[in-house]
């Protein structure tokens, strides 16, 4: 029998607190992450103490990280990142070594004992996946060249974190050999998961997703189910390996990322991004709020001066190390600068490493407090650097470019401009496509049916699979820069979204079912609203008149229509003949 359910107040308070803080941040131009972290500090035991970590909030913050990485995975097309794999490896390893030395040395200088300094060094090596990826996503830079480099480095760091956590969880290592074994096992596991994801993306997933892509709800839930499969396996890999006598761990973030990566290779990934995004936002919010929920004020503030000093030293050091390494790998000045400035904070993983070390009895709660404060502070500061990275770069560019090498890496892809966007491939628009193709260099078609996408791509049109109501899809089709837009959707929401987004000079054709919708669309700037039912009604009546008058043209007209119906060519090049009305 089930006991009575009481919804926890904690989650509601977190929601409200984060919302209010978020509104304030939005109105004052601050990044929302800061608002969430501060909301956590205020609500948590350090200040008001009205919220405790509950099972639900813990779940949601875990899901937050998992979904963030899943979402990131969905955006990574292997073709796009292959060429930077080598530089990423060459950057991340020396970077971690350098920061480890800096962190440990600094800690010693600040008066921590050698073991504590060693662990602090291990904890500060990573940059924050949550902050960097969230900011990159918000700024729409996750797939830019510097975004990809950062993401790659973060993932390598993630693997290292997993290894270190595994070692720490196993208690004091018996020696180097022990560490080496753990390292080897984890690397093999990562490789296995990667292979599983890549193989799935080549074999099972295309078949499955092709079938379900047209069913919005099933599509979304199956994708989630797929992500959870990887999360579950990664998290319980220890159980699976126990019979073999191997002890090893993988992070759920790693699993989620691989699950996303497998889906990213399919043409339907764009649509999924928009579906997963809102859930991620909600869960990641809980994650940031709960960062500060665990600690008492005294523990948090015991070493506050040391934390400030460490932060002020580590951030520039991290920046310079990245700057040097990226430059060494031959990226251009802008990429180098942006890629480095993004990574100057200490990661939430630093807190986790410290927490595990605390539980293992290696360090005191106060050192954990020091790490937490360091992480929160550097995350908060770095958010501003990331937010304003571009203006910052413009300032320092003249100085920087003097002593930095020329970039050798090519990045970025061609963008649409003055093109035609067509929403929906159907009987109404298919005749118009060849006509548009004759006039525009690029014709982009947005459609929600898998078969249509295949047909369109075979014909050489740029086809985007997805719902036009999703902002990623609109951005992908570069609606703002289109010269011509045609929508065969009769949904007013779609057409209004189109009209709101197009540039002033664009010509817009839309469809409507009802007269008042049509008026509304003209008011919003449509140039032509096709009203299929009215048109067909008029046409039918004129055919009837011709029939009753025994007009010969009746036979011609219906034969024409039948011929048009019969043409199975998906892109009838017959538009030359079209357009003659019976009444003309």
């Amino acid at each position, binding site marked *: 029998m*089930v006991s*009575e*359910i009481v*919804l926890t*107040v904690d989650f*509601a308070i977190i929601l409200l607190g984060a919302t209010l803080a978020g*509104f304030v941040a939005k*109105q004052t131009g601050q990044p*929302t992450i800061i608002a969430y972290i501060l909301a956590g500090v205020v609500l948590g035991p350090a200040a008001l103490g009205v919220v405790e970590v509950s099972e*639900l909030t*813990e*779940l949601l913050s*875990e899901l937050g990280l998992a979904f963030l990485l899943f979402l990131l995975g969905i955006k990574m097309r292997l073709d796009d990142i292959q060429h930077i794999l080598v530089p990423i490896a060459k950057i991340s390893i020396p970077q971690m070594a350098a920061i480890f030395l800096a962190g440990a040395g600094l800690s010693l200088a600040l008066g921590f004992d050698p073991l504590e300094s060693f662990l602090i060094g291990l904890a500060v090596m990573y940059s924050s996946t949550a902050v960097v990826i969230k900011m990159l996503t918000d700024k729409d830079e996750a797939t830019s060249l510097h975004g990809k480099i950062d993401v790659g480095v973060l993932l390598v760091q993630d693997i290292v974190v997993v290894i270190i956590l595994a070692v720490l969880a196993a208690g004091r290592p018996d020696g180097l050999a022990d560490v080496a074994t753990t390292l080897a096992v984890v690397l093999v596991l990562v490789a296995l998961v990667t292979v599983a994801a890549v193989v799935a993306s080549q074999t099972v997933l295309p078949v499955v997703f092709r*079938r*379900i892509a047209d069913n919005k709800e*099933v599509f*979304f*839930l*199956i994708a*989630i*189910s*797929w992500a*959870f499969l990887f999360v*579950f396996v990664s*998290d319980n890999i220890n159980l699976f390996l126990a019979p073999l006598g191997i002890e090893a761990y993988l992070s*759920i973030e790693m699993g989620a990322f691989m699950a996303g990566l497998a889906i990213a290779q399919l043409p339907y990934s764009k649509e999924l991004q928009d*579906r*997963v995004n809102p859930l991620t*936002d*909600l869960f990641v919010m809980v994650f940031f709020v709960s960062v500060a929920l665990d600690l008492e004020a005294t523990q948090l503030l015991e070493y506050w001066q040391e934390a400030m000093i460490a932060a002020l030293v580590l951030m520039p050091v991290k920046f310079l190390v990245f700057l040097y390494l990226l430059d060494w790998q031959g990226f251009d000045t802008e990429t180098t600068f942006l890629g480095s400035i993004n990574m100057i904070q200490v990661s939430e993983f630093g807190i986790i490493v410290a927490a595990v070390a605390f539980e293992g009895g290696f360090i005191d709660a106060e050192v954990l407090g020091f790490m937490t404060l360091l992480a929160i502070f550097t995350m908060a500061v770095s958010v501003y650097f990331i937010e304003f990275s571009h203006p910052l770069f413009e300032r320092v560019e003249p100085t920087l470019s003097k002593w930095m090498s020329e970039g050798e890496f090519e990045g970025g892809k061609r963008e649409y401009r003055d093109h035609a966007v067509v929403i929906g491939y159907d*009987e*109404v628009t298919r*005749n*118009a496509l060849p006509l548009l193709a004759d006039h525009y260099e690029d014709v982009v078609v947005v459609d929600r049916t898998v078969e249509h996408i295949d047909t369109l791509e075979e014909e050489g049109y740029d086809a985007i699979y997805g719902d036009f*109501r999703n*902002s990623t899809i609109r951005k992908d089709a570069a609606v703002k820069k289109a010269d011509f837009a045609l929508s065969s959707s009769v949904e*007013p*929401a779609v057409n209004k979204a189109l009209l*709101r987004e197009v540039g002033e000079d664009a*010509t817009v*054709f839309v469809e409507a079912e009802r007269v008042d919708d049509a008026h509304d669309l*003209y008011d919003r700037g*449509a140039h*032509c609203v*096709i009203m299929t039912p*009215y*048109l*067909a*009604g008029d046409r*039918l*009546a*004129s055919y*009837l008149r011709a029939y*009753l*008058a025994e007009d010969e043209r009746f036979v011609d007209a219906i034969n024409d*229509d039948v011929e*048009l*119906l019969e043409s199975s060519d998906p892109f009838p090049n017959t538009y030359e003949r*079209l*357009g003659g009305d019976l009444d003309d």
Partner: protein
Amino acid sequence: MTELLTTISIMFIVAGPFLLVANRFDLPTVPLLVIAGTIVGFFIDEALTLELAQYGIALLVFSFGVDIDLSAVRSVIRDSEVAALAQIAVVGSLGVGLGLALGVPLEEALFLGVAAALSSTLVGTALLRTEITMNLLQGRLAQSIHFIQDLLAILFVLVLSAETLDAGPVTTMLGSGLALLVAAVLVNRYLFDAIGRLAGDSDELMILGVVSLLAVFVGAAEYAGVSVAVGAFAAGLAVRHDPVEYLGLFNGLESIKDFFVAIFFLTVGALVVLPFVEIGWSESVEKLVLAGGLALLTVVVKPAITTAILLYRGYEPRSATLASLSSDQVSEFALIIAIEALVLGLLTQSVFDAIILAAAVTMIVSSLTKRYDERIYRVLADRGLLPANHGKVDELSDVTGPLVDHVIIVGYGRHGQKLVEACDADDTPYVVIENDPARREAVVAECDAYVFGDAMEQYTWEKANVDDASLVVSTIDSDPVSRRLLSFEFDADLTLRASDRTIALELLEAGALYVSQPDVLAGKQLVSRIRRVLDDELTPEALREEQLTELNSIDHPEFQHRR
């Protein structure tokens, strides 16, 4: 990783294959999630996910509140389809009776009554989507019936929170519910746009704001001792808004809803104690008899009663049957009511299980009956189980004039009106065939001759004197109707309407003189207009002026607002 995350992972992993099955066989997802849940139940402690399931309930009811079309309430009342209420009363009583007959105490039997009476909007309306978008009579009827049931379900959840049927507590609950609704209206009017302004252009903050709003309403409901579902419904009403301005918000809410609602249905399934597997024989049989009885009541008796009532209200047999067939399942609201009652201790495990099992089964059966609804109707009609009611057709029709070489126009929608105008102008005699009571007034006022009956019925055509007609023009975009007309093999020429190109070709092949396919015609027009603009024959602005003039010449105001 928390235990909860493991639990959720298992839930979704198990659900995956079931969702694939749903997709493969075109079944609704709800029952398959429930069935997947029964399997998940073996691996997890469902008490863990109850709280998440509550969020699922809240979001489910919330989005019902968001989508509610207030003008629909008015039109339902105007169309006097409140007859649906009678059906709920009758079937509900039968459900209670069934429970009592099987030895279930009255308090619990009431829930069986609710389960039997209410139909699923998620399943029923989704199955009828085509009919609803095409504005066919049975689609509209079914939508109204479901809508009334949903509202009643909310009311019932409200009363349920009183945990008793005494007048005092119930009145208090109704008072709290009313207060929440008033708050919702106020929030909608004064606060919602403020949230929009505060969030600026950030979808993230907008979603967060609205979810917070939901949390506040749910919290207020809990505080007042009312079900979270009622609070969520009020929150939904508070957020009702033209989706265009907040596209990101409403898309985002849908994702969040889909996620939590899936957890809800899986949890419901996990709560079921499976007969035979988890309990002994006698208990299992008892449970199955109860579930079977409920399923039978829902699948057979409920549609029969609904049909009878609709027939009595003057709808013709086919629309009545098809609309009724769409209500032959247990509602997801019944699941919400059941889970709340179980948690409150008002319902024993076996009655709960019976309701959930019956719900899963009937939702699947329902998609099958929908698939074969025309055939079911035909079988019933041919066996004489449905009253032919020629008297009614005679009474409502007017075919007094001489009808030779006339045109028969099927359907008096926009196309039908245009065709009547054309006949009038040409002085050609015509008969209009129509079956929608909502259009009756217009037909009587504007047409010389009309038959008020179903175009699928032989008698309607006799009445329209099809043997002497020269042309039959069907404006009904429905494959079964088109095929049926072809099967009559009229001597007259026959033109049909279809929205699908392949079907249009098949109909031509099968002997139609012409098949009007609006999209092809629109495509023709579109190409000519685009070409004029691209060839610089016409500036976009000039085209716009021309189009607006043309639009203003459309003058059928009474049909503009009808959906």
